[in-house]
């Protein structure tokens, strides 16, 4: 839990890492980590991971997706919605 870096920077307040509120690992953009992973509007299953239960697009700050890939992702999700591969919302009559 405590991060090792915290000891190095003079003991400011408690021994937490610099500028990093809360704990938990740093999230890495999945698309940067795995170059083979392509963003494709036809891949409803893959894109579904970036939707909330309601079908809303999850912000990159939560999924860890970098800005560049998040932009590509939102476009792909919207294209997929157009052709009904993904829902606009879950609550549907």
């Amino acid at each position: 839990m405590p991060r090792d870096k915290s000891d190095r920077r003079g003991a400011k307040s408690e021994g937490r890492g610099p500028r990093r509120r809360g704990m938990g690992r740093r999230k890495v953009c999945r698309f940067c980590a795995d170059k083979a992973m392509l963003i494709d509007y036809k891949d409803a299953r893959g894109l579904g991971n970036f939707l909330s239960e309601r079908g809303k697009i999850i912000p990159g700050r939560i999924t860890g997706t970098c800005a560049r890939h998040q932009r590509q992702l939102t476009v792909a999700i919207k294209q997929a919605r157009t052709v009904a591969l993904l829902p606009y919302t879950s609550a549907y009559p």
Partner: protein
Amino acid sequence: MADRRYETLVLIHPDQGEPGAKELATRIRTLVEEQGGAVTQVQEWGLRDLAHTIGKQRRAFYILFEYRVASKGLDEIQRTLKLMDPVLRFVSVRRPEGAPPAPPRPAKREREREDAEFERGEFEGLGEGEV
């Protein structure tokens, strides 16, 4: 002329039936070719459930076309598709030159199983958000 790579996914009204959808596929293919396009791939995904209704329909035949045309040709293709009544909707996307061709869809049986899994496990999202 500078032909570009495109891909179009077309949704066809379910009342057309399988043969009707197939016929439309060839019609659209000739449409692309009339516009000076070279069709590199046609994928028929068959009748699929829609994620939301379109024109009161819950299902549609999906057909994917990959081709190269000049952008003028694409304009004409899109215009004609809009006028085709059995076409519920379509999306055209420019594909980068080096992109691999769309991988074939898994066989139907396998796909249904995967889709069922998807449906169940699907939208739990990535909840663990630390904001």
